[in-house]
């Protein structure tokens, strides 16, 4: 069906109405992204007025192949993928499980939905502050609890693997509410008649979930998986707030921020290297693109199979 807005120049109105949106999309999203791609081939510092030189693939070469630093960069890349894998699947599973529970017609489900969703609205700084206090090693609540079993830990400031695990857990806690809400929205679109018919036919709970809920939740599953994959690949803010720039905990997003903005330790001076950081950003972008597109391709094929 086509809609005619008028004749003559008036037929162009819908396109012109799109202009402000397109303008801001170019200004805020596409423009900076393209500029980042160009910057990645320069030695730009990000300082207004500083000279910028074309350096070809030097930044990429340095990031991927130069000395031990490139091995550390690849370790950060690996860590990012591990973080993405754990966050995506645990957050997905937990979000679905909680959504199924709070979607039942029981007393108090609204209260629980609010409680589970609450971390989402807190913001990264508040989330970080809260967990820093929970995990305070000198008599914080978790330290006290562990001390009952004779266990001591430095938590976020101790072993890098442990700090990384805590940040992963907090990332899931902070964002599980969104996953849950998307699933609840999906669950509420499933007609109740289907469940009634299945029960009359004698289907048990697992059969109902497997043959009705799961296939009809496909759009929510796809949305959640894509959001989780892309969100976790780009995540770095909680690492910044909770752990800081520490060996063995950096993910690619944080590495880019620290490099681009001359992240320092105390008063130690470093250089601003936004050209180099832009190259790292493009590598992260390619990673997100490949994983995101692959995920989408798999999900679309699955959806098509279910709808057949």
């Amino acid at each position, binding site marked *: 069906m086509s809609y005619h807005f008028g004749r003559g120049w008036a037929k162009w109105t819908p396109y012109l109405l799109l202009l402000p949106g397109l303008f801001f999309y170019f200004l805020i999203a596409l423009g900076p992204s393209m500029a980042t791609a160009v910057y990645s081939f320069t030695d730009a510092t*990000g300082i207004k007025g500083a000279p910028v030189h074309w350096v070809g693939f030097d930044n990429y070469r340095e990031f991927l192949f130069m000395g031990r630093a490139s091995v550390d960069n690849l370790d950060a890349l690996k860590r990012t993928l591990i973080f993405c894998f754990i966050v995506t699947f645990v957050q997905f599973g937990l979000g679905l499980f909680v959504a199924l529970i709070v979607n039942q017609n029981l007393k108090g489900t609204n209260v629980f939905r609010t409680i589970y969703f609450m971390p989402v609205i807190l913001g990264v700084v508040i989330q970080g502050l809260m967990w820093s206090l929970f995990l305070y090693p000198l008599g914080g609540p978790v330290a006290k609890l562990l001390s009952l079993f004779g266990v001591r830990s430095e938590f976020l400031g101790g072993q890098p693997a442990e700090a990384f695990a805590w940040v992963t857990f907090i990332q899931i806690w902070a964002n599980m509410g969104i996953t849950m809400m998307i699933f609840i929205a999906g669950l509420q679109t499933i007609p109740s008649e289907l469940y009634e018919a299945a029960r009359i036919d004698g289907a048990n709970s697992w059969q109902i979930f497997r043959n009705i809920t799961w296939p009809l939740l496909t759009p929510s599953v796809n949305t959640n998986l894509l959001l989780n994959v892309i969100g976790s690949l780009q995540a770095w803010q909680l690492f910044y707030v909770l752990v800081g720039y520490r060996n063995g905990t950096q993910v690619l997003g944080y590495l880019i921020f620290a490099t681009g903005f001359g*992240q320092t330790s105390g008063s130690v001076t470093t250089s601003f290297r936004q050209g180099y950081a832009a190259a790292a950003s493009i590598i992260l972008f390619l990673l997100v693109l490949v994983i995101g597109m692959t995920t989408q391709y798999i999900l679309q094929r699955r959806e098509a199979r279910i709808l057949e």
Partner: protein
Amino acid sequence: MSKKMFSLMSLIVVFATLLAACGSPATPTEGSSQPAPAGEQPAQQVTLRVLVHQNPPMVAFMEEFNKKFQEKHPNITIDMSVVNANDLSTVSQTRLSANDIDVLDIFGFSNAAQPYMKQVDPPNWQQLIEAGLLMDLTGQDFLKYYDASALTDAGSYNGKVYAVNLGRVSYSGVYYNKNLFNQYNLKVPTTWSELVTACETFKAANIPCMTAGGKDGWPIFVGAYGLLGSIYPDQAALVEGLWTGTIKWNDEKSLEMWRKMQVYARDMMEEGASGIAGDAAPGRFASGAVAMFPGGTWYAPAIEAANPDFEWGYIPFPGSDNPEDNKYLFGKYDQGWAIAANTPNKEAALLYLSEFSDPANYQAFVDAVGFIPTQPTAKLNTQIGAEVAPYLENFRVGYEQYWVAPKGAGQFANPWASYFKPFGTYDDPVELANKVQEDLQAGLDAVK
């Protein structure tokens, strides 16, 4: 409404939106039209945007100073922002680039590229100067109050002054709790062995030996810089030696340092120190619960504020068994002032620095923050001043103010005690020393 009319109105709205978005932002009008004579009060109402880093006694002093400044100059309003020290360079760069700052706090110029360093980028202060973002202060009248050496070493580039440094600090010393030392009949340690004995005594009495604000990361390893200093007192030469290969992080001399650093991290530092915020550490020490606190002289006002009756002392970290090796205090040039080159409020900014530099105001500043003054007429009135006075002739700029890592060096190419358990993953000094040297060598080889 006809379709044509609706289309026309829609188009007007669209173009109005585009024009509004393309229009230049409102320019600050305050004080930007006619500059007043240098150092004099501007004729118009001016808002002076000032940026400082988080250091509670310094921020408290600045708030008081700003209040008095505004009373004296009612047509100048101070809008002061405070950022974490780790974020100062980032915020300075973005606000300078956006022309959104007039006066900024800048650490003493350091980490400059040396002739023996290859393929290193210029430090951020040099990048800012070369981009024309910092004002040339050469010839300003208030510079006469400051040490010529401080102006040259910590705020000049290519013969021009771009920053006024406000004081030196030491970070290689240790605060000690006098009451606890007296109570356990312990002598204030002047050697490494005495320090180890003192810590063992405290630990046996269930008293943590040392604390630090480990949540900020750097306080854990900075606390052990005295160990580095007792082994390598000439830290500029150490940096050159590391770059040229005459010193290695896994040679016999360095191994002694790593072994001691492990004792520091594992046995001396209290469990849980990694969770203590940098701002909270002086309070924990002043509570009397801990015997020692390795840290910078800038913590002294916070200790006094937390518990004015608390009795403490400050000594160089005794990293060697030869007391002669422990006579040095290592440190840096700390906070300084610079002015944005493109400030529309040049006169107000110069007036602000001029007032601040007035010897009476400056004396109040060093009294408040505990800096070792860079104005020769200022006195060390504070307790921390008295504590460091005997060591001032042996004051030296520390390693991390000289060090620039070669590109391609690994992330462990630093002499940091925090690599050891429980803060890091290592518990074998030899293994760590090899790893640190390997990470450094990878960078040196990459830039050959």
